[in-house]
């Protein structure tokens, strides 16, 4: 059997992300995949040298549009650790609310793209229609639709009043109901099952060994979630990681579905327990020292390494995003699958290439 080398991406109809894979195929079966990254490198880490540590908040928010507030939260938590700032309790709960809203809208976006990859365009529209409700919540509470810029060093900038809280909870009820309806539409569908069940299996051992993160890891049966490490108000909320055990494309889809419901539940809990109080404390002095800050994003664990030398500017900023961690597991899943399944397999790790390359 002759081998053919096929370039996949960086422009591909089902994948808006500029990821290039060199696929070696044999009779439509993938034998080897070699990734090539670097099409959208923006040098955001380097910017830390010429923008001071408070301006960097706005810059890290733009590492990834979908996880904007989580990047800022991770960064602020790092700076707060360096400056020994204790964030007010209310701010911690508000951070949870915005973070979980982000998770919902990110997973809905992914589910839409996933449906679109199968050719289910109307289902794609359905998910995005639901997602629009969350975008409205974000716009009304933070002032921007996508880049939810609410974090500052020492707390948050904006508050959510009782009236808005009621509206948010009502909207979330609607979202939960509508997503639940679509759950049967996509998860019980014959075609979807045919193309996802048992395909792209990532075993528990491999997932651990290759350092997978987020739903890709949890769908292989490992209950690891950075929210368990207890940042923001998560230690006071009742939650346990959503896991699936099969490790195939279907399990990863189910995992994301269930995380939407979990996120809705976490927002409800956060509002129920949120204390009154101030929103932010003013930090004193300048950051000094080294710290690693970790946060669970919709796609998995993001890691910030910050090094500061007591000046306004950071010495070094290093960001490791979840997609970067999920590329080795992807390369493990691809060999042995059909060429036609490649786009769907790439989608199941929920790739965000622009944040991988920063």
């Amino acid at each position: 059997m002759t081998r053919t080398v096929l370039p996949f991406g960086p422009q591909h109809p089902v994948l808006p992300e500029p990821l290039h894979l060199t696929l070696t195929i044999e009779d439509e079966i993938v034998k080897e995949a070699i990734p090539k990254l670097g099409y959208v490198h923006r040098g955001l880490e380097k910017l830390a040298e010429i923008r001071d540590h408070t301006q960097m908040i706005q810059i890290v928010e733009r590492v990834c549009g979908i996880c904007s507030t989580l990047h800022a939260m991770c960064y602020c938590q790092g700076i707060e650790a360096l400056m020994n700032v204790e964030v007010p309790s209310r701010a911690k709960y508000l951070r949870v609310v915005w973070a979980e809203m982000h998770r919902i809208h990110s997973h809905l976006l992914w589910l839409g793209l996933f449906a679109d990859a199968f050719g289910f365009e109307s289902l794609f529209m359905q998910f995005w229609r639901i997602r629009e409700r969350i975008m409205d919540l974000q716009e009304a509470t933070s002032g921007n639709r996508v880049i939810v810029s609410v974090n500052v060093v020492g707390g948050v900038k904006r508050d959510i009043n009782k009236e808005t809280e009621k509206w948010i909870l009502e909207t979330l009820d609607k979202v939960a109901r509508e997503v639940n309806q679509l759950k049967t539409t996509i998860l019980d569908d014959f075609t979807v099952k045919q193309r996802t069940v048992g395909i792209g299996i990532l075993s528990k051992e491999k997932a651990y060994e290759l350092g997978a993160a987020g739903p890709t890891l949890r769908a292989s049966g490992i209950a690891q979630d950075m929210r368990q490490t207890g940042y923001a108000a998560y230690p006071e909320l009742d939650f346990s990681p959503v896991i699936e055990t099969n490790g195939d494309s279907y399990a990863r889809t189910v995992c994301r579905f269930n995380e939407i419901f979990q996120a809705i539940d976490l927002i409800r809990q956060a509002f129920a327990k949120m204390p009154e109080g101030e929103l932010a404390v003013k930090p004193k002095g300048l950051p000094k020292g080294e710290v690693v800050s970790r946060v669970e994003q919709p796609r998995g664990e993001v890691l910030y390494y910050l090094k500061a030398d007591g000046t306004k500017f950071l010495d070094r900023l290093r960001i490791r995003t979840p997609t970067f961690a999920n590329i080795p597991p992807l390369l493990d899943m691809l060999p042995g699958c059909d060429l036609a399944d490649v786009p769907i397999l790439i989608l199941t790790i929920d790739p965000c290439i622009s944040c991988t390359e920063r």
Partner: protein
Amino acid sequence: MFMTKTVLKNLLTKYATRLYPFQTRETFKDVKGELKIEIDKCVFCGVCKMRCPSQCIGVDKKGRSWEVDPFACVYCGICVDACPVKCLYQEGMYKAPVAEKHMVFHAQEEKADAPT
């Protein structure tokens, strides 16, 4: 099967989208839209210029003028919060698209009866 039911239901319900631009929705309160200045209040201290993360503001103290590159502005609102005399504000709407990029320039007029 499930899908067929959903598709039929969709056909019978009304549009989820608006007929933009004929039909628009009201903006939410405190949305960070286009950046505006009340130039008469400005004291040309340059705080906004220093704080702006995308460095798109220019302040000329001598010429008593202020300018912003609206295409580099990221609508973050940092300058609005930082301004000591609160002369900056953001409108609820984003800037409308234009065919050519330009700077937004404001200069304070000489007050005729100002003491010299």
